[in-house]
């Protein structure tokens, strides 16, 4: 079943030197699956994630033939209607918890605010729900965390709090934009496992944006590889290592590996033809 259907998405930024196309005609669908989007910085992967929520700020311009959320076209919605979509039906976890949590509000107040905004409940019920969510993301002393401020949290805890906050309205789709790149390897797994169980239990669709190929190969079901604003390759995550596109191969080969020591790492040789080639469709 298709949750999300994006057709011919473009994101443009007018500049003094003409219009810069950051995302160029991307199409893909998302079912109840974990879809990975990988690419280097500047490949347009984050902008793709943001445009699904129509979060491209002016002067940026986004266009798309349609973005269907269960048949409901987001492109025709007013800004007011979009607010009912953001958070409620599609949530987003950003890269760095330090910049996404309000530094002058306690964690508890922020989570409760998120919940009360979308549900007509009193404070007591919201508090209970917030505690429950914090427990769901394996935070050990939720009462203490509720009273704390974001700067008192470690990166891993901050990111788990963000996930708790994003999942509270029970959205259909979760967009995670590099949710673990600010975290340590050991904490990374923990956060991913939590996200994985929550997504599975609730039957949500997950868009996982990352630059880490190994992580995506392990964690996702399907992967879109983006280069210069276009999708250059689509493959199943477990077959990522057999990817054919020279760009994907180059990225894979440039990683140092513990099991295969090499004197020199391969450096990616970019071919201008890659960015000229038409976008591959990410539809099933």
């Amino acid at each position, binding site marked *: 079943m298709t949750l999300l259907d994006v057709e011919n998405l473009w994101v443009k930024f007018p500049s003094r030197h003409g219009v810069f196309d950051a995302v160029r005609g991307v199409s893909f669908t998302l079912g109840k699956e974990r879809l990975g989007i990988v690419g*280097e910085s500047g490949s347009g992967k984050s902008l793709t994630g943001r445009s699904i929520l129509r979060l491209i700020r002016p002067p940026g311009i986004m266009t798309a033939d349609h973005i269907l959320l269960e048949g409901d076209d987001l492109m025709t919605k007013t800004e007011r209607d979009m607010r009912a979509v953001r958070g409620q039906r599609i949530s987003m976890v950003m890269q760095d918890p330090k910049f996404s949590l309000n530094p002058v509000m306690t964690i508890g107040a922020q989570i409760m605010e998120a919940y009360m905004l979308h549900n007509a409940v009193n404070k007591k019920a919201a508090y209970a729900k917030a505690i429950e969510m914090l427990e769901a993301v394996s935070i050990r002393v939720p009462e203490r965390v509720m009273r704390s401020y974001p700067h008192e949290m470690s990166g891993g805890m901050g990111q788990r709090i963000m996930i708790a906050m994003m999942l509270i309205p029970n959205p259909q789709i979760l967009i995670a934009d590099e949710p673990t790149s600010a975290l*340590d*390897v*050991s904490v*990374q797994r923990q956060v991913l496992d939590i996200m994985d169980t929550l997504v599975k239990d609730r039957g949500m669709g997950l868009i996982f944006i990352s630059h*880490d190929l190994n992580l995506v190969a392990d964690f996702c079901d399907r992967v879109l590889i983006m280069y210069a604003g276009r999708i250059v390759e689509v493959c199943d995550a477990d077959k990522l290592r057999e990817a054919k596109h020279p760009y994907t191969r180059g990225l894979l080969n440039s990683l*140092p590996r513990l099991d295969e020591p090499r004197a020199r*790492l391969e450096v*990616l040789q970019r071919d201008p033809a890659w960015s000229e080639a038409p976008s591959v469709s990410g539809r099933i």
Partner: protein
Amino acid sequence: MSMLSVENLNVWFGHGRDRVDAVKDATFAVARGESFGLVGESGSGKSTILRAITGLAPDWSGNITVDGKEIGKHREKTFFKTVQMVFQDPYASLHPRHSVDQVLGETLYLHGFTDIDTRVVNLLDDVGLGAKFRFRYPHQLSGGQRQRVAIARALAPAPEVLLLDEPTSALDVSVQAEILNLLADLRTEHGLTYVMVSHDLSVVGHMCDRLAVMKDGEIVEIMDVATLRNMQATHPYSQHLLQASL
């Protein structure tokens, strides 16, 4: 004889009941020309060790010896000619209003060089940027190019030891490969000694000969890379790290 040796190093921040012991009793030695890695999760004190060596962490005790000379609270000018550091975030470690020429020129001037003009060009060639980057500002450079400038700045006084604090963790994998290759080349060219901090075991495995695993401010294990590759780490925490990074 070892180029750099650290014995019973303790580093702490704050005092009284706010005191945090960031590094506890760390001891290791790095031979001349060797590349030594420090790995561990954030907060394990690996960067703090580098900061203590360069004098950026004021409160420390223990012995730090560089090239046979013991380091006191006050560091001599010769110390900075021997030891230089490259920082993690190339976006934060360059002055936004200084051009590459100013950054390198000032460093060279402070170290008492007189042939600054030719040295700036040589440094830029060394790090694979070339003279055309000389009058650019940091915002005109990509992340990888900035890190190259940061490396050039560290190389300016012709040091013997480079302390690398996560030099590639802010960069893309494709750019990371370029920088790691550059660092490997520079090491052979200039006979440098590296101490490299990273949370990425595969990067350390690629760059270093030996490594120390840190947890909660303590070095729990020192091993060579062959041991790491064969997954023969003895300490449970190192094994856990190895599992997580495969």
